[in-house]
């Protein structure tokens, strides 16, 4: 049986690359969408040579809703699976001072991803099957002083995915929320992350592939993060507001 295509949105990120490799290794055709998609030509060749599957490149800018329809229309086939790895963290200090910067973070992590996935949600619903994967963040579980701009956008995205899952549950379309925790990527390069809590992009890809197979709903890549976030969520606000975490 031939496998259906997998569309990766925000295909330039390390997690996106790992996810593309993982599904290509399973025999899925791959559709890579990103800004300046032509610069992904090397990655297209890489995946085609390694896994002998077709790879197509698609221009898509999360911050430009006008680019969405051309992206969707340009796909050779409607994908079986869409994985949204779009995200931008910026730095908290900058996000606090610089309103346009904060807006970019909010739009890149919530508005853009939610808007694009809405389009696929409707198409998948009409077709009667499909899987939607949203890579959100544990940062969205509770706002903290150190990254609440990014975190609040991810909180919005997590809520959006949860609602979408609820809406599509009876329609044959499955929605997966991925909460990676720390991952060693370009986004976190130079940060001093504890090794035990930090996943490699390939681990995230494996967790996603397993989640698709087992129809999981919410996935913490490293199980320890489920416990950590349970604790962080349950600290009373009166105490939490005084903590430095």
């Amino acid at each position, binding site marked *: 049986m031939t496998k259906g295509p997998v569309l990766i949105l925000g295909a330039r990120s390390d997690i996106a690359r790992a996810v593309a490799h993982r599904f290509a290794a399973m025999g899925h055709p791959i559709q890579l969408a990103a800004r300046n998609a032509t610069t992904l030509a*090397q990655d297209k*060749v*890489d995946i085609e*040579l*390694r*896994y002998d599957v077709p790879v197509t490149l698609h221009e898509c800018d999360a911050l430009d809703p006008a680019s969405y329809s051309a992206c969707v229309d340009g796909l050779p086939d409607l994908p079986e699976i869409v994985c949204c790895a779009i995200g931008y963290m910026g730095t908290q200090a900058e996000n606090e001072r610089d309103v346009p910067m904060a807006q970019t973070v909010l739009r890149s992590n919530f508005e853009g991803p939610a808007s694009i996935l809405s389009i696929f949600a409707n198409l998948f619903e009409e077709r009667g099957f499909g899987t939607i994967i949203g890579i959100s963040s544990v940062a969205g579980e509770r706002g903290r002083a150190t990254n609440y701009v990014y975190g609040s956008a991810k909180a919005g995205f997590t809520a959006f995915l949860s609602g979408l899952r609820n809406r599509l549950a009876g329609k044959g379309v499955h929605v997966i929320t991925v909460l990676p925790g720390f991952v060693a990527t*370009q986004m976190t*390069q130079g940060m001093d992350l504890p090794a035990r809590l930090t996943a490699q992009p390939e681990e995230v890809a494996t967790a996603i592939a397993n989640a698709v197979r087992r129809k999981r709903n919410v996935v913490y890549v490293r199980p320890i993060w489920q416990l950590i976030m349970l604790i962080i969520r349950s600290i009373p606000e009166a105490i939490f507001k005084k903590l430095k975490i």
Partner: protein
Amino acid sequence: MKLSGWGNFPVHDVAMQTPRVVDEVVSSVHAQDMIARGNGRAYGDSALNTHATVNMCGLNRFIAFDADTGVLTAEAGVILGDVIAAMLPRGWFPWVTPGTKFVTLGGMVAADVHGKNHHGFGSFRHCVEWFDLCDAKGDVRRCSRTQNADLFDWTFGAMGLTGVILRVALRLRPVETGWIRQRTIAASDLGAVMALFETHAAATYSVAWIDCLATGKDLGRSLLMLGEHASAYETPARLRAKTATMRQKRRLRVPALLPGGLLNRLTVRAFNAAYYRWGAHNAGSRIVDWDSYFYPLDAILGWNRIYGRKGFTQFQCVLPETSAHDGLEKILKQTALAGMGSFLAVLKRLGPQDGPFSFPMEGFTLALDFPVSPATTRLIKKLEAITLEHHGRFYLAKDSHMSAETLRASDDRIADFTAMRDQLASTAVFRSEQSKRLKI
């Protein structure tokens, strides 16, 4: 961040960069004190520079494959195991492979790795068509046997000290299956195993596990393992069908913190004796998969942790044919005397010298693992002295202990190497903790 080689010793606090595209590497080179690092499989400090260590694993794309010639072009951070995974189902296998598939192509060039077929085929350089190297000025140079031929020659075995290897074009060998016909022969002592290597010089692959704690008449008792690529005709149908897919084996993982004393004289001696008897009892031919044959240790992820948190070192020397028996006997006696044997004692016949700075030379190479300790440091000094007396030299990809003086005493090519480095203006730009220690 704290970083070490495969031996977990020495540990240095290094600044690490991870470029994703070639341009990022080129711009990072400019007049920096830096070294490129592959997948960290060199044992010691070859791929560490406290000032700037450039992790090449982000540059890991396949670029092209020519199915007529079997030449694969890829970025230097591509892992050998990924090459096998992609190419074996299409009937291709690397011409040369070291004992682990978790090395990068760039690292294979830098160490000019050798495999179980060195006696017949030579080192990795013989299957490399060309590579692109970023030199000290930040210029990218294509190096091959006809283009920048000197730089091509010197870069093999230079441990990254001529520049940053960016892309590699390597020739693969056509194979009919992923199966290996393995033949195991027990050898009762050192003379016997050395003679067996000569008797089976025509074998494609040969390597011996040696019991480094056996003494007296058993000194050097070994299991010689020969291998040939199995043809489709020789492979049972039920196995042939499996060739097309990469065997995804259940892997064991060594837990993070093992007590350092787990490997001691008693446990290693007992293991070695049992392993030799088991091997001698099961001597003969059988068909094994490529992964078990070439990479038995890769099945145990993180096996380097078995030596505890202080880490370990591998002593690997090569001795020329004429003095090999005498030298190996002394090394084994000294090792047994110190009571510091390792599970991993490997003896291999090597073919002729490959290039101006590659490790191999015609003779025998012996590799021994030891946990890091003051006693090990003393033993290694003794083993180095024996190697020097017998005109041998040392493998830089394994070294973490040698002095600059020992290196110079072992290898008369050092002056030419450092002169070449000066001429390329690379001496101050490409440096590792190893090159600082060895003053090269």
